């Protein structure tokens, strides 16, 4: 049902290697692309800029982390630090008078350089040790940010970002900013989708799965780990800069603290390691679920005529949201992306119930 393999015939390798081989998948992707494009007409600017926009930017950021954690298999607990490097470099560059296009690029490249330093740790240690090393780097970065007035303006200060501009045209409208976020997310998504069908993606999976077998095929795991860290840091850096330029409008050290690192990792794990569509779901859950649950609990309490005190009202959503994450990971350890995949696989063979790919 809906997803049908019948009638799909490929007569060239080019046709077989397209992003969406099943018409339903392609149509669905196009539908959401169109929905994203016309979203400003459909939803008010409050929803557009306080829900959709951060969702898209965080998705781009989480996809970057997914590259290094999901694809290359390197646990990374210092991703927010990398985003901070990108954000601060870009804001400083923009304040210096460099056009935003280049400022974003500078943010990405400087984040990439710092992120590659993380990679040198990754080449020495693995697994939990790597997680701890990257976590330590996050703390170092936090300290550097709060203690160097030249970068952050001091421990409790924040850095005002200059007005975002493209090709010299300042972009101040909500819709304009939304489209900036949308374009960046689209670029990263297409990159991640392409990863599934290129040598780079295969090499990263090889490094993740069995490094000795990768080596005998000529895959230099040293090199590909650095590539993974550098690329993911570039994506993270630009995402951090875009986040500051279109959402926060100012950069402060707390925006990129260790809590944020863990939150982004949670987005990736709940979404599904290595899954692009899952990352969209994962970010939505981590970022938007608390607000939604909050609303439901508050409305429900009023509807049922219950008098809940403020403390209970604050704790129920947090507990529900925590429980939701646990339930999802217990039902499907591979995350929301796999959960969607299961439904899709089921529908593909419906009404026969064997779950075949």
């Amino acid at each position, binding site marked *: 049902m809906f997803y049908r393999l019948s009638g799909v015939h490929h007569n060239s390798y080019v046709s077989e290697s397209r992003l969406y081989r099943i018409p339903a998948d392609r149509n669905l992707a196009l539908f959401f692309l169109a929905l994203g494009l016309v979203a400003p007409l459909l939803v008010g600017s409050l929803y557009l800029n306080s829900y959709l926009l951060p969702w898209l930017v965080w998705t781009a950021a989480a996809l970057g982390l997914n590259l290094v954690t999901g694809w290359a298999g390197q646990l990374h607990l210092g991703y927010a630090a990398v985003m901070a490097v990108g954000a601060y470099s870009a804001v400083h560059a923009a304040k210096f008078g460099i056009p935003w296009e280049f400022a974003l690029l500078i943010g990405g490249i400087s984040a990439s350089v710092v992120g590659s330093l993380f990679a040198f740790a990754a080449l020495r240690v693995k697994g939990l040790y790597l997680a701890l090393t990257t976590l330590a780097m996050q703390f170092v970065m936090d300290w550097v940010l709060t203690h160097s007035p030249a970068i952050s303006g001091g421990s409790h200060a924040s850095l005002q970002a200059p007005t975002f501009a493209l090709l010299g045209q300042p972009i101040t409208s909500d819709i304009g900013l939304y489209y900036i976020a949308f374009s960046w997310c689209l670029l990263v998504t297409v990159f991640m989708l392409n990863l599934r*069908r290129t*040598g780079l993606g295969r090499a990263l999976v090889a490094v993740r*799965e069995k490094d*000795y077998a990768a080596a*005998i*095929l000529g*895959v230099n795991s040293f090199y590909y780990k650095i590539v993974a860290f550098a690329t993911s840091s570039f994506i993270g850096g630009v995402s951090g800069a875009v986040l500051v330029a279109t959402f926060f409008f100012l950069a402060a050290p707390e925006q990129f603290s260790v809590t944020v690192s863990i939150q982004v990792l949670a987005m990736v794990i709940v979404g599904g390691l290595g899954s692009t569509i899952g990352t969209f779901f994962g970010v939505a859950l981590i970022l938007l679920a608390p607000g939604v649950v909050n609303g439901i609990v508050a409305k429900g309490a009023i509807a049922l005529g219950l008098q809940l005190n403020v403390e209970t009202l604050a704790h129920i959503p947090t507990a529900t949201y925590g429980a939701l994450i646990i339930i999802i990971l217990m039902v499907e350890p591979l995350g929301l992306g796999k959960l969607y995949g299961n439904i899709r696989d089921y529908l593909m063979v419906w009404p026969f119930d064997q779950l075949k790919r």
Partner: protein
Amino acid sequence: MKEMDNNYNRRQADAKVPPVLECCGIERRFGGIVAVTGVDLSIRRGEIFGLVGPNGSGKTTVTNAITGFYPPNKGSIYLDGKDITGTAPHKVATLGVARTFQNLALFNGMSVLENILLGRHIHMKPGVFPTALYWWLARPEEMRNREVVEEVIEFLQLESIRNELVDGIPIGLKKRVELARALVAEPHLLILDEPMAGMNQEEKGYMARFILDARAERGISVLLIEHHMDVITGICDRMLALNYGEMIASGLPKEVVKDPRVVDAYIGGAHG
């Protein structure tokens, strides 16, 4: 058998070309344990060379020394006349050595096709920019290499499982996929570490045929590690037997398998 001897003699005649692989006095120790010592072997172009020995006799250590995982403590290794002693595994691969593993080393989570495509890695230039600009930079290269892969898929009769995940296919096919992955790299030297372990007679027959065909069609030389003596005597031109890390016999298979020391090592003294 007669025909095979003729082949061998013909190849003996043009022995002037440097051997594909030459190992001189290889020794590898792990702490105080001497895993392999004083091993000399030389594989000529187009030859299928058997390496046998009881479990723990150092066969896999020899291949790990050649492929750079455990560089020898003593001795040297030449590939096509070039010294490769101590070269890192991923560089040995680019020099034209491919190998399969005793306990399969396929990448789970990827399809058969993707696994075999990884074998083409040394002939491709994957990177971030080709991935970002797939349609312009990566696609032509991917398609060129896909054609090479498809040839090998056809050769090894893997068409029907091309898009299956490797996690779910039977072990006989997994071994064949691993052979395909090694073959698409177009190696000069193919090292097969027990390609027929755990196979039935029919699957063994298929595998032996594939190895012979690979040599005939692609002109590659093969270093074959096996416990099945029928396979070794059936398809190998020459062989070497190891026991406790030392060479105990080498030469023509039918002579080596009759060597009292080999019989002794394999079946025990009482038999002799």
